[in-house]
């Protein structure tokens, strides 16, 4: 059995963690049975595997002079000093998996780098997951055949991949990409050296066979009794059964099994045998020469020239070298020379190739009745059949196929569509207009952009040709479809729909009309204006920022705010997905401000703003800064209002701020209020439509809905439905229909057309601008500094209060001089540690996730940085915190995070800087630095984000650190994020410095010592924890 050997090889290296060496020959980093099982249990449910099942497995692994070299820096630091590693056998703990289990595990590993926190997918495991994807693709393409496999004298009925044409190229490509670790398992005592291609083929075959068996309902012909063979009339029956049964083993005498294997191989030979010739036969479909006026609609259409399939020889090593077959039968000098490469014999090859092609595509047979066939002519029906079927068959069989660009270019195929034409009276544009307005319209049919008359459509139906040229463009037609469209048109020349439905139609998201896809709306009047604005064809009016708004929007922010206002006016949901740092918050606040003042005092209703706990304080601070006149209610924590009290308190507010955690828990409370708007910040929190918070979000009643996110939503097709269903319910149809029409075609099939269609349907509702956009970059300063207000967790708050209490006691005890100073400085350090992370304060090596508001926020923001493929510097003044951050981020992202602190040697430091600055896909994205070690001298211009995780209260020092990225050589804008815990000493010291900017240089510049000069009361006030600081 293959997998007895190979599965452990793939599984074992994945969850390796550092452990102590037990025996000399044991791999230093072996994960051991318990962790292996635990890891597997976290990933795959319901595997019936126990610790006893693990086996010692000998792998050939790299080491240098007895020092093992780990697979990645997550396991152990890189050892660049060990320059010439050697392979030698080591023992690891392995878990043998049955094929079905291995397939399940790999399915979970596909396109992922982490499986759970701290559980990373090794490169070799990721490789096998790619092989499984390939097996999946081959299964979809039906590129496989029934076969017989022999191994160690046993015979198995197996489904085998058919690797011809493009698949053969994939085999080569994938074999070259295989990490050598995939072949590390020792056979006997010798170093493993099986060719990558062989190992790949074998694994691919096993996966493929498993997938097909999975999908095939076991045959009804069940063998009676245990001895399977006895109950079959022949070995052939046995073989057919074993291809569809769980048990693939074939039983019989060696002679008859051998005979079967030979028969099967002979039978497969025409398909499997590849002729390694220097040229291959290639078919090029050529369009008819241009007709007089190029229109099928004209009655003067004459049957002039026809379509043509030309035979060509294509050089395998130079695909652009094409020789018409016409010249190849008896090649003249220059051609003969070209065709000589690789001992190619054109005549012999062509006869065999054309013969085989004729059996796939019988239409070309007639062309062979001459001594030197060159191609053949065909009519529109033939051309259509060639495009839709034969081209595929020929390509699968390994021939070259060249089709006209208009056919292969994605998303541009023209076809018959229906459109709604409305004439609406000019209407004044604001107020009173709604999406539920009912509009009359006339149906019209169109080919591409061309509207057709009824008579023209009838004329098309009479042509009965599947491909016709209309005004210079080829259009695919289906006779049944035209008939249905004619019938529909006759019966329903007119229709009526709401404006909302018209919007859907205009985006191509509407229901079909008479079996024909609805492609758009042809309108005039205000509907036309509205649709043009919505589709971005005409710019919408820029709105004036209300006077009450306490801030200045940059030009692109005015556009974003106006866009939000435009969609809000129509009650359409909007997703503002600007890059991090472009000011989604401020644009949103401007909208809320405008909306608030646009309504009479009596009609005012609050907006519900939901965000992650970690940014509640940030919103609060930003609202206080930019919209100080708006009443804000923070709804979180244990003391939050309940039932009627909540309703009463919420009613007069402009903004009610709460968190995702409460969205579901307090759903009943939120339901009591008729919200003006619902805004979701970090809207990726509802990407999974089935979660309780997503459902709760969709259930909220409000006039408008806005989602904010900095992650590129449009890249995650699977998440888009949930988001759109929140914003504009029903636009993307049901989830099942979405999965069928978009998710599977895009995600699984790589369908460009579906991608385009989805983009068209969603783009009016998603505004995403990048820092790098030309129009944005000119509006942005080169350096953008932002304060990030974080929230304390309950644990942090109680630790914080304990420290403050201690200090108060000391101060009240009347300590003075050095003693007092020492106590104040110590307390300050402790408080900063608490704000960073309880684990730093306690120094107890305890778990990290979920205990620090700062760390949560840092993780969220860095996730966006990584999604944009950008790089960041993270500064902290505590090297023990740096170590914690590094561990946490590596486990969360499954990517290397480098950390420069005082203990790093110069040589190593230079190497870190060098690696970070490399424009390589593998190089680290996050560079963690201790303020002291990394604050000066380095040039780290690959980073365009700088995070100050904690503060040194010395602008000069911080700026110096920031300048590691913001310096000559930096071509992008740099964003500086300064972290503060709201309501704590961090915020208050920051305020003091801001207030005393002029003093800062002289007083503050010297460090934190000046704080100790404050009076006891001032100190107590400075340190006291404000209520707003605490999350849950």
């Amino acid at each position, binding site marked *: 059995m293959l997998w007895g050997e190979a599965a452990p090889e793939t599984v074992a290296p994945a969850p390796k963690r550092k452990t102590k060496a037990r025996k000399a020959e044991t791999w230093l980093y072996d994960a051991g049975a318990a962790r292996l099982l635990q890891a597997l249990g976290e990933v795959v449910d319901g595997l019936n595997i126990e610790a006893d099942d693990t086996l010692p497995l000998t792998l050939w692994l790299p080491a240098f002079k007895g020092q093992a070299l780990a697979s990645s820096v997550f396991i152990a630091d890189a050892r660049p000093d060990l320059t010439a590693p050697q392979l030698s056998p080591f023992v690891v703990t392995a878990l043998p998996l049955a094929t079905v289990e291995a397939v399940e595990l790999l*399915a*979970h590993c596909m396109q992922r780098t982490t499986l759970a926190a701290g559980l990373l997918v090794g490169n*070799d495991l990721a490789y096998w997951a790619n092989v499984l994807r*390939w*097996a*999946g*693709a081959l*299964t*979809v393409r*039906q590129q*496989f*055949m029934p076969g017989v496999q022999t191994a160690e004298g046993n015979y198995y009925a197996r489904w*085998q991949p*058919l690797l011809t044409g493009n698949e053969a190229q*994939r085999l080569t*490509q*994938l074999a070259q*990409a295989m*990490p*050598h*670790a*995939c072949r590390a398992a020792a056979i006997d005592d010798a*170093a493993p*050296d099986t*060719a990558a291609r062989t190992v790949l083929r074998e694994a691919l075959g096993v996966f493929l066979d498993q997938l*097909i068996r999975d*999908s*095939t*309902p076991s045959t009804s012909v069940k063998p009676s009794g245990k001895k399977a063979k006895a109950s079959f009339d*022949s*070995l*052939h*029956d046995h*073989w*057919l059964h074993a*291809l569809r049964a769980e048990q693939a083993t074939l039983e019989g005498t060696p002679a008859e099994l051998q005979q079967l294997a030979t028969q099967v191989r002979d*039978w*497969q*030979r*025409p398909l499997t*045998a*590849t002729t*390694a010739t220097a040229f291959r036969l290639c078919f090029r479909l050529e369009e008819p020469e241009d007709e007089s006026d190029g229109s099928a609609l004209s009655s003067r259409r004459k049957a002039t020239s026809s379509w043509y399939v030309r035979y060509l020889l294509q050089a395998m090593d130079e695909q652009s070298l094409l020789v018409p077959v016409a010249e190849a039968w008896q090649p003249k000098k220059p051609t003969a020379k070209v065709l000589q490469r690789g001992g190619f014999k054109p005549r012999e090859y*062509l006869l*065999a190739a*054309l*013969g085989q092609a004729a*059996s*796939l595509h019988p239409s070309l*047979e007639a062309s*062979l*009745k001459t*001594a030197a066939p060159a191609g053949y002519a065909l009519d529109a029906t033939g051309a259509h059949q060639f495009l839709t079927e034969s081209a*595929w068959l020929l390509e*699968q069989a390994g021939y070259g196929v060249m089709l006209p660009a208009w056919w292969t270019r994605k998303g541009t195929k023209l076809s018959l569509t229906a459109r709604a034409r409305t004439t609406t009276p000019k209407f004044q544009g604001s107020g009173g207009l709604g999406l539920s307005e009912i509009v009359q319209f006339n149906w019209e049919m169109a080919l591409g952009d061309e509207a057709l008359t009824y008579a023209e459509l009838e004329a098309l139906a009479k042509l009965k040709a599947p491909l016709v040229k209309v005004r210079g463009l080829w259009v695919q037609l289906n006779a049944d479809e035209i008939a249905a469209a004619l019938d529909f048109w006759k019966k329903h020349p007119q229709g009526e729909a709401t404006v909302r439905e018209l919007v859907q139609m205009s985006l191509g998201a509407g229901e079909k009309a008479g079996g024909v896809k609805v492609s758009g709306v042809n309108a005039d009047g205000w509907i036309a204006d509205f649709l043009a604005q919505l589709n971005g064809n005409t710019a919408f009016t820029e709105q004036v920022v209300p006077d009450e708004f306490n801030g200045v929007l940059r030009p692109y922010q005015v556009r974003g705010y106006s866009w939000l206002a435009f969609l809000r006016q129509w009650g359409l949901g909007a997703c503002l997905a600007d890059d991090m740092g472009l000011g989604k918050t401020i644009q949103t606040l401007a909208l809320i401000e405008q909306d608030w003042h646009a309504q009479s005092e009596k009609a005012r209703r609050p907006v519900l703003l939901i965000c992650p706990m970690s940014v509640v304080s940030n919103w609060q601070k930003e609202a206080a800064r930019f919209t100080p006149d708006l009443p804000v209610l923070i709804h979180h924590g244990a003391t939050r209002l309940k039932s009627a009290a909540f309703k009463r308190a919420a009613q007069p507010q402009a903004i009610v701020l709460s968190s995702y955690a409460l969205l579901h828990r307090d759903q009943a409370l939120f339901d009591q209020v008729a919200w003006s708007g619902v805004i979701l910040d970090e809207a990726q929190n509802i990407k999974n439509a089935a979660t309780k918070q997503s459902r709760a979000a969709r259930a909220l009643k409000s006039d408008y809905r806005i989602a904010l996110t900095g992650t590129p939503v449009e890249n995650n097709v*699977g998440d888009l439905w949930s988001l759109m269903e929140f914003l504009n319910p029903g636009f993307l149809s049901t989830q099942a229909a979405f999965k069928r029409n978009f998710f*599977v075609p895009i*995600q*699984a099939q*790589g369908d460009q057309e579906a991608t385009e269609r989805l983009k068209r349907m969603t783009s009016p509702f998603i505004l995403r601008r990048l820092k790098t956009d030309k129009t944005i970059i000119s509006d942005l300063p080169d350096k953008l500094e932002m304060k990030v207000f974080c929230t304390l967790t309950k644990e942090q708050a109680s630790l914080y209060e304990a420290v403050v209490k201690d200090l108060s006691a000391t101060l009240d005890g009347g300590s003075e001089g050095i003693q007092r100073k020492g106590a104040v400085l110590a307390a300050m350090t402790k408080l900063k540690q608490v704000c960073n992370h309880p684990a730093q304060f306690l120094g107890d090596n305890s778990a990290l996730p979920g205990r620090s508001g700062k760390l949560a926020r840092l993780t969220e923001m860095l996730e966006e940085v990584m999604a944009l493929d950008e790089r960041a510097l993270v500064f902290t003044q505590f090297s023990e915190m740096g170590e914690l951050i590094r561990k946490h981020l590596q486990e969360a992202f499954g990517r290397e995070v480098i950390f420069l602190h005082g203990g790093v040697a110069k040589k190593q430091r230079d190497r870190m800087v060098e690696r970070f600055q490399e424009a390589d896909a593998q190089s680290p994205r996050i560079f963690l630095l201790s303020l002291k070690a990394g604050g000066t001298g380095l040039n780290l211009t690959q980073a365009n984000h700088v995070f100050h995780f904690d503060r040194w209260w010395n602008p000069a020092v911080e700026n110096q650190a920031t300048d590691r990225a913001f310096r000559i050589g930096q071509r992008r804008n740099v964003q500086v994020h300064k972290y503060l815990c709201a309501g704590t000493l961090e915020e208050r010291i920051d305020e003091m410095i801001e207030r005393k900017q002029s003093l800062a240089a002289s007083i503050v510049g010297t460090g934190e010592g000046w704080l100790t000069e404050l009076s006891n009361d001032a100190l107590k006030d400075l340190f006291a924890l404000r209520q707003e600081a605490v999350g849950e």
Partner: protein
Amino acid sequence: MPYWNDWGYFKPKPRIEKKGGIKSQSKRGNFGDTWWGKRWIAVLESFNLGARLTRGRSYARNGSVLAIDIASGEVKAKVQGSFPQPYKITIKLKALPDKDWRKLAESLSTQAIFAAKLLAGEMPQEIEEAFKAEGLALFPGKAGDLETDCSCPDWSNPCKHIAAVYYLLGEEFDRDPFLLFKLRGMERDKFIQLLGAATPTAKDEAAELLPPEPLNAEAVIYWQGALLPPDWLGEARTPPVAAAVLQRLGNFPFWRGNETVSDALRGAYMNASARGLEVLAGSEQ
């Protein structure tokens, strides 16, 4: 058989059940898928064999024919009848002399279709005309062209056993028309050569033993491998023609199963596409 019974020499015996014999892949209706297979059967059916023909057909379908061996000018076969010992059958058809074949090949060389189709395992329809033009015949014309013999006690010739073998030969010719040429004294490769073509020298990579590739301990090569381009997998579309591979594989040589390969396995192809999509779409939704 009736008169044997009338004479009372022995009691009618049922045919001995023999499993796993060669079974016709056509379960009902006519034998022969291709024009040449049909043409071969037509010769037999022109002999007015009456009931023996029907019996022969059912023998061909139920696996009574145990073995068939085709050689130049002669076919040998074994058929299970009512005797424990299978009957031995020979069918002889005159082989054509070499010079006739050469003459023929010359005239066939003027059109690419002959060589092309023969190489692809098909007999071009025009070939019979070509034979006729050279004064030759590919198929036996009258009963006398065939010399048949069977070890069964039936005196009539051809008997049902011969008919059964004859039917199955039709199917084998369907699959490989060169068997018909072989019977007429011409080997496949030789004839292809006469036509100025060549059987492509093909290799079956799956069966090949590749040279060893020792591992490299360098960290990137060992642990990471090379990066794949983002579009390496290509589009995974469900094919426009279902189970095309089975169609391309064609009939299985000397099939003995109860179900035909394509009947049995077409479903597996249909279901596979859906399963593949499931894998590619991931477990997310």
